[in-house]
Structures are given as structure tokens and as C-alpha cells.
């Protein structure tokens, strides 16, 4: 009898683990999907998106970002199984509202405009070998150009770039290197990096210009990219305060130490809002989910998103400090096809090539206008504004004049 009970338990655990398995890839995602549900947003739970696919593949309407998942089926009707334009992702999901999704949108846009077949491949596990295997699978499927989003692909690209000289590789947000960090970019590879400080600057500037005086920055781990966002944010706020001549702009500044949505992060964000913080720049993966949850629970609390336009995640998001992933991926792919592909060196995307920015159309500003945005954007492009983006420096060495920074330890 006991044995029977145990086996039932085991079966139950298997069931549970299967669902856990579904959730694994997108640990933070579950939250966001939940938050979106009431916003009438297009992000179905992943499983649904997949399950529906067969039925309404034909009904995929343009403009609906998440319908990206259904693209392979679209292509399948007419073309062969393979695709010459491939996105290879890690173990996350395609509609992650982040790198995977942004890159995929860029690829899709180009594929649709030019009638090129496209497809994405997902890795079996998060190891260098598995990434290599997946890239090779894409090549087996006929891929001529492969886009890999995220620095996890630095080593895999390093391994395959020499092996497949006829295939073009686009590495978003990273540069190829081997296990011992010897960097080398082959002629058929194009790494893309972003100047996060410029995006952060725009966000900080816009927030202060829009009348916010109590700001917060909640970063994930203190990695260079995150620090650049943060320092840019501080500089932008300071620049705006100086320009407007207002005093008393405060920024509470903190790194949570992880990119996960944790109760601690949510509690901290809630306490900031409680203490008068009006808007928090949530800069660190799923940390954003925690901050948004706290903002939704508080009155009049706002959030600034990061990397991609996160306005669909929560009504509290007023704008996002974006890397224009789809733009840059689109440009990179386009360059492969029109022959202007510049392999062998890293492409830096910043304001000057529309690689970073704020999504003004989807932003909820009161007084900050498109004209204001264009003006400051032009100043960055022209080099009139110089942002101190040295990540080795402390906050106190940034030379801020108007803004008081409260660093939380």
C-alpha cells in the first residue's frame, strides 16, 4: 500500500516537474505574463501561444509582436523546411520581451519585406557545446545568416565563425572570444554593442524634464552594461536639472545583485515609493517585474523600463531606456544582403545610428515632448553632451552638480 502511495507521489512529482520544466526557460516571464493578462496585452502564456499555433497560423496579423512565434508556420506553407535567415536563442523563450524578441522582430521585418525565409532555433541546454550544436542545426537547416542574441553566444560564435566561413554571424550585445577571453572576430562575424549610457541619459533627462524630482535606480548586478545605464541615467537627470535650474532632485541608487524577480527587490521598491520616490529606473532583467509589481501596488508610482519597450508590461511604465535591437539587427541583416556587411569588427550602436533611444510613441510623459526629445538626442549625436561612462569610477566621482545621489548599500 505504502508503495502504491509512493508511486502516486512520484507520478505527481513528475507532473509538477514537467510544469516546472515549462517554466524554467522563462523564470521571470511568468510574472510578466500575469501582469499583462489584465492589460489586454498580446502576450499569451507561452504554452498557449504554442498550442494555438497550428490553428490560427494563417490569422497571424502584422503588428502583433508576439505572433513572432507563429512565423515558422507561416513560412512553412510555401518554402522548404529550412530558412536562410536564422535566429539561434539560448534556453529562453522567443517572446521574452527582451533580446530574443527584439532580435526576432528585426529579422522578421527584414524577412517579410524581402521575401526571405526565416526561422528560429532554441538550444537544448545552456552550454557552449549546446549553443554550437544549435547553430550547426540552423546551418543544417540552410541558414546563411545567423543572429545570436546575448553575450552567452560569445564563445560559441568564436568556435563556429572559423568553421563556417560562408555563413554570416551577427552577435548581439557581445564579442566573440574563447574560454580564456582571447577576443577575435572573424571576417564573417559582426558583433553588435550598445552604448547603454546614452539610453540611460535619455531616460534620466526625460524624467526630470517631465517634472519628476524623486528618482530611483534599481539595477540588477553591477555589470558594466548596467553601470553604464545607471551612470547615464544620473548624468541625464543632472543635465536636465541644470538646464531647468531646479534644485532638490534626488536619485536613490542600488544594485540588487541579481537579475531575478525577488520579494526583496519588490519590498525595497515598495519602500522607496513609500518614502516618496516617484519613478524608478528598473534596470536588470526580471528585477523590473518586482519594481512594476511594487509600483502597481503603490499610488502614483512610475517605472522606467530597460532594453526594450516595456510599456506593455505594466501601465506604470512611463518610458523605457531602449537598445533598438530590432533596428540594429535589421540593419545588420540588411547589410549582409546588400553587400555592405562589415565583418571582423564590432559595430557600436548608439544615438548616432539610432541604436539606442526612448520609445516616444508609447511613452506616457506629461510635459516632455517629442521636440524636447529630438533636441537632446541631437545634442548627444553631435557630441555636445559628453557622458561620463567610465564604469571603474564611483558615483561620487561623476561630477554631478544638481542631483543628490543616495546610494543604498
Amino acid at each position: 500500500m505504502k508503495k502504491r502511495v509512493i508511486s502516486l507521489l512520484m507520478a505527481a512529482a513528475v507532473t509538477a516537474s514537467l510544469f516546472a520544466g515549462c517554466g524554467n526557460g522563462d523564470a521571470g516571464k511568468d510574472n510578466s505574463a500575469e501582469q499583462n493578462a489584465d492589460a489586454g496585452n498580446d502576450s499569451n502564456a507561452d504554452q498557449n501561444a504554442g498550442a494555438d499555433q497550428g490553428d490560427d497560423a494563417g490569422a497571424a496579423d502584422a503588428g502583433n509582436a508576439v505572433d513572432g512565434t507563429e512565423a515558422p508556420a507561416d513560412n512553412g506553407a510555401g518554402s522548404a523546411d529550412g530558412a536562410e535567415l536564422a535566429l539561434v536563442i539560448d534556453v529562453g523563450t522567443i517572446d521574452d520581451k527582451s533580446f530574443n524578441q527584439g532580435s526576432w522582430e528585426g529579422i522578421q521585418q527584414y524577412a517579410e519585406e524581402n521575401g526571405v525565409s526565416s526561422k528560429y532555433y532554441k538550444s537544448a541546454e545552456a552550454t557552449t557545446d549546446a549553443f554550437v550544436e544549435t547553430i550547426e542545426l540552423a546551418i543544417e537547416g540552410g541558414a546563411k545568416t545567423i543572429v545570436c542574441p546575448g553575450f552567452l553566444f560569445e564563445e560559441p560564435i568564436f568556435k563556429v565563425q572559423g568553421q563556417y566561413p560562408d555563413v554570416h554571424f551577427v552577435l548581439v550585445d557581445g564579442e566573440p572570444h574563447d574560454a580564456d577571453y582571447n577576443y577575435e572576430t572573424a571576417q564573417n562575424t559582426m558583433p553588435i554593442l550598445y552604448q547603454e549610457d546614452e539610453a540611460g541619459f535619455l531616460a534620466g533627462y526625460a524624467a526630470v524634464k517631465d517634472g519628476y524630482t524623486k528618482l530611483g535606480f534599481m539595477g540588477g548586478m553591477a555589470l558594466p552594461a548596467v553601470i553604464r545605464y545607471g551612470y547615464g541615467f544620473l548624468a541625464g537627470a543632472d543635465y536636465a536639472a541644470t538646464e531647468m535650474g531646479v534644485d532638490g532632485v534626488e536619485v536613490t541608487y542600488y544594485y540588487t545583485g541579481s537579475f531575478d524577480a525577488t520579494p526583496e527587490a519588490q519590498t525595497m521598491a515598495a519602500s522607496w515609493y513609500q518614502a516618496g520616490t516617484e519613478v524608478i529606473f528598473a534596470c536588470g532583467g526580471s528585477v523590473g517585474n518586482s519594481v512594476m509589481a511594487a509600483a502597481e501596488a503603490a499610488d502614483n508610482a512610475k517605472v522606467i523600463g530597460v532594453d526594450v519597450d516595456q510599456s506593455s508590461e505594466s501601465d506604470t511604465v512611463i518610458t523605457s531606456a531602449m537598445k533598438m535591437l530590432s533596428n540594429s539587427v535589421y540593419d545588420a541583416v540588411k547589410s549582409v544582403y546588400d553587400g555592405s556587411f562589415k565583418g571582423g569588427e564590432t559595430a557600436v550602436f548608439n544615438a548616432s545610428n539610432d541604436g539606442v533611444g526612448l520609445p516616444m510613441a508609447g511613452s506616457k510623459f506629461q510635459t516632455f515632448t517629442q521636440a524636447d526629445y529630438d533636441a537632446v538626442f541631437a545634442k548627444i549625436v553631435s557630441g555636445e553632451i559628453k557622458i561620463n561612462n567610465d564604469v571603474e569610477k564611483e558615483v561620487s566621482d561623476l561630477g554631478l552638480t544638481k542631483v543628490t545621489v543616495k546610494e543604498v548599500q
Partner: protein
Amino acid sequence: MKKKRDSIGFLSSLFAIVVGLLVGLVILLISNPSQAAAGFITILTGPLTHGSKGVGQVFYYATPIILTGLSVGFAFKTGLFNIGAPGQFIVGAFAAVVVGIKCGFLGGIHWLVALLAAMIAGALWGAIPGLVKAYFNVNEVIACIMTNYIGMYMVNYLISTNKSLYDKIYNYSKNVAGTANIPKMGLDVIFEGSSVNGGFFIAVAAAAVIFILLEKTTFGYELKAAGFNKDASRYAGMNEKRNIILSMAIAGALSGIAGALLYLAGSGKHIEIADVLAGEGFTGISVALLGLSNPVGVLLAGIFIAYITAGGFYLQLLNFSTEIIDVIIAVIIYFSAFSLFVRVFISGLRRKREEHAAGGKGEGGKKE
């Protein structure tokens, strides 16, 4: 008789697999009718059509889940439900990675020491639920679930707070020294291009050791007796507490080795700082169920599940979204795990018949 029962086990596993595959086929048909047949063939033959590399990958994926399957299956044979495999797995992996990073001076025996460390760490971690059950009568399932989370968070903490272990850019553990990687033992030649390594031989050896332990030794006799009938084993004077603790420790050691073999595979696997329990530990439950907790069965079940998972990977060559593929593979594994129920059902029928038969024989014997 014994043979007959074994064959029931095998048949019920086979039956469960067939049902799982059929349900998988139905989902394929619903999601993309025009490619369902091709998709089904890809799932069944994918790894084989990708040459020696494809086959090698199957063995590579099978290695850790064979061991976690053995871990769960062994505990189950002794009447314990080791749902703590994910925790033991990650604690073992941690020990292996620490030794792998810090003890480069060990040279040729480096990987062996790392493996041993993982085994010991896993055993200690597994022994905790055993101790708690033996001395405080706390159900091992509850204790195991706790140790899963404690293990995961503890490892996350220990890595992320230790500069020498932590690669903060990638947010995972640093690379282990090359000497800590499990030697390929010639498998890289046979299965060129795949990540398979000597770890697979270690998994097979572990299955053999567990088989011998359970079937040939007095210790296995005691453990199985306790698993079948705890009261009878007490009546026979077996040391219940000791057996529970040892049994959980051995199960933990197996999961610990599983962790070491995955993270020392040289495939570029790192311990990620994420609040997620190791999936390999849970897959071990499926493997144990499909393999009916029998070491040989677990070995085959591990290879089968790895094979199907690899087949699902190749399914991406056709037009199936990755989500659907995940669902299909999960369904196949899930149904396969039902083999136990099929077996209970079949042997239930058989038992009824046997009891009638036994009644008849008993009387027949008294004729004289």
C-alpha cells in the same frame, strides 16, 4: 515466475512508451498536419540521422539523468521517495566545481577527486532527510523538498559571494580547470563532434554497482526488505534507522555524481545563479518510473528519454515551434512514466488469477 514478472515490467514500459508516442503524434497532427509524419520520424530517428555526433549527444544527455534515475530508483526500491535529487545534484555539482576550479595542482587525478568530492557532498546532502526521518520521523518527501531549496539557494549564495568561483559578467560559476573535465575515454573519437565523455561509462558502472548491491549483497537484501515491508524488516531485527540513512546517502551520492558529470563534462556548463531547481533531478523521477526502478531499466530509460529529447531538438528543422516541441517531448516522457500504473494494473489481473490457481493447487496437493 521471476522472468514472467520482469517481462511484465518490460512490456508495460514498452506499452507506456507506445502510448506516449501516439499521443505525441496526435499533437504533431494537430499542430502541423502536413509535417506530422515527417516530424514523427524525426523524433524517432533524429539522433540516428545525425551520424555519430547525434548518437554521442544522446549518451551525453543520458549520463546525468541515468544517475539521478538510479538515485530515485534505488531509494524507491528501499521504500523511500527521494524527491531530493535536484538538491543533491546541485550540491554535488558545487563540490565538483569548487574542486575543479581550485585544485588544478592535482593534475591527472583532478577529475577523479572532483567526482569523489561530488559524491561525498551528495551523500551528505542526501543523508540529511534520512537522518531526519530516522530520528524525528519526518517524512522524507518533506525533508527532501526543503533540502532541494536549501541546497539550491546555498549553492547560489556560496558561488555568488565567492570571487574565486563567480563569473559575475555571466552570472554563473567560473570555468573549471581543464584537468577537472572528465576524460573522453575515446568516446570523442567514436562520436566525433559530440559532448559525450567518459561520464557515460561512469553512469553505466554506477548502474552495475547498484544492481549488484541490490541483488547480490546482504545489505541490498536488507534495504529491499525494508522497502517492501518495513514492519517485517524490523521484526527480522534489521537496523531500520541505519538503513534509512545509508539508503538516502547512497541515493544522494548518485545524484551528486550526476551533478559532477554534467558540470565536468567539458561542454561549457556552469552553475547559473538562478532560483531554479535542477531539472535533471526531476527528470530522474521519470527515468526511475519508466525504468521501474530497476538499474538496468533505468539505464535504458535514461537513454530513451535522452534519445527522445534529442529527437525533439532536431524537430526544429521542421516547422514546429519550440513550445510545441517541448509539449510533445514532455507528453511522451509523461506517459512513459505511467508504465508503473500499467504494470500495477497487469500484475493486479495476474495476481487475481494466481490466487485462484494457488487455491486450486493447495487443495490438489492434499489429495492423498
